[in-house]
């Protein structure tokens, strides 16, 4: 888990080194780095700007972002889409049924 965070931080730093060096980009990368260090063990968190676009591909209804498990949850249908490496997996076949949770 920590190794993953370290690797993620290293990738961000590499990205910062190769970046076009605008203040805005550097700030955003610093923010991402902070999020990773504070964030959950379930990999990199979701890009916040995506939340304004994303809906459930099945019902086209809004989703709730659950930070603790890094998932996008459709309460109505009882399914959760995972976010892996900051990329949300919105393929219905990959979604987890939340009803199975203890």
């Amino acid at each position, binding site marked *: 888990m920590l190794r993953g965070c370290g690797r993620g931080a290293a990738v961000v730093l590499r990205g910062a080194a190769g970046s076009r060096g605008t203040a805005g980009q550097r700030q955003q990368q610093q923010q991402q780095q902070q999020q990773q260090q504070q964030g959950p063990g379930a990999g990199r968190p979701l890009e916040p700007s995506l939340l304004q676009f*994303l809906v459930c591909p099945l019902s086209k209804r809004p989703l709730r972002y659950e930070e603790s498990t890094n998932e996008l949850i459709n309460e109505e249908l009882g399914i959760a889409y995972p976010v892996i490496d*900051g990329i949300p997996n*919105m393929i219905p076949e990959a979604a987890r049924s939340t009803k199975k949770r203890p």
Partner: protein
Amino acid sequence: MLGPARGLAAGTQTHFGFQSVTEAERREKIYQVFENVAEKYDVMNDSMSLGIHRVWKDILVHKMNPSPGTLLVDVAGGTGDIAFRFINYVRSVRERQLRQKLRNHQNLSWQEISKSYEEGRSNPLGDSQVVVCDINKEMLKAGKQRAQHLGYSEGLSWVLGNAEELPFDDNKFDVYTIAFGIRNVTRIDLALQEAYRVLKPGGRFLCLEFSHVSNPLLSRLYDLYSFQVIPVLGEVIAGDWKSYQYLVESIRRFPPQEELKAMIEDAGFLKVDYQNLNSGIVAIHSGFKL
């Protein structure tokens, strides 16, 4: 897992290149093709098209002519070629806008001038955004790495999703692009319907894809090159003859210009038109949600 519960039309017959397979098999085979080629995708594109694919993609983005503030969804965007070009384009338009603004205002104070530079620095894309959506995890991973390597981060996000079932809300995007991707979609009609749904009214659909060459001589040369050279390149460079055999066959199987135009119109798009590049080896189809 939700797979069995969804009652997919797994049994319907369709094609994989020149083979006849079920829809489910086709999806699986195509997924594997791109999983195999993801690492070498860009190198292969350059060698097979002799670098010309870059020009085709440049033309697509120039045709789009996006202004700062444009929201783009690039479907089957995989390794980010269109997304990066979009970002470069709006960045330079934005820079030109800011320079023009400074030039036109003769009597600016120093405070106003420095504020304008600050504006440029903090919002270089002018709130433009591109969401890259692809069904293949490997292609997205490759794309994300490329983005980090090339220094793209602002205004860019990645989503794993199916073009036939987009995870986006209605009326969200200004432009929808699909470059060399629609050929690999199993139900093109569904993908076109989804494209229509997620576009804002007034939004534009742009599709860049291999098409049909009507000139008989050129057609024969193209066939020769496709069937004799491309799979060999695939084997030599990527160690994968079959994937590139699939590529060539899928191009032959894909509907020609007029037929694709009709399909796009069926989805509800208006003012649908196409532009042939290199005598029809590639075509850009465009339509509007009006």
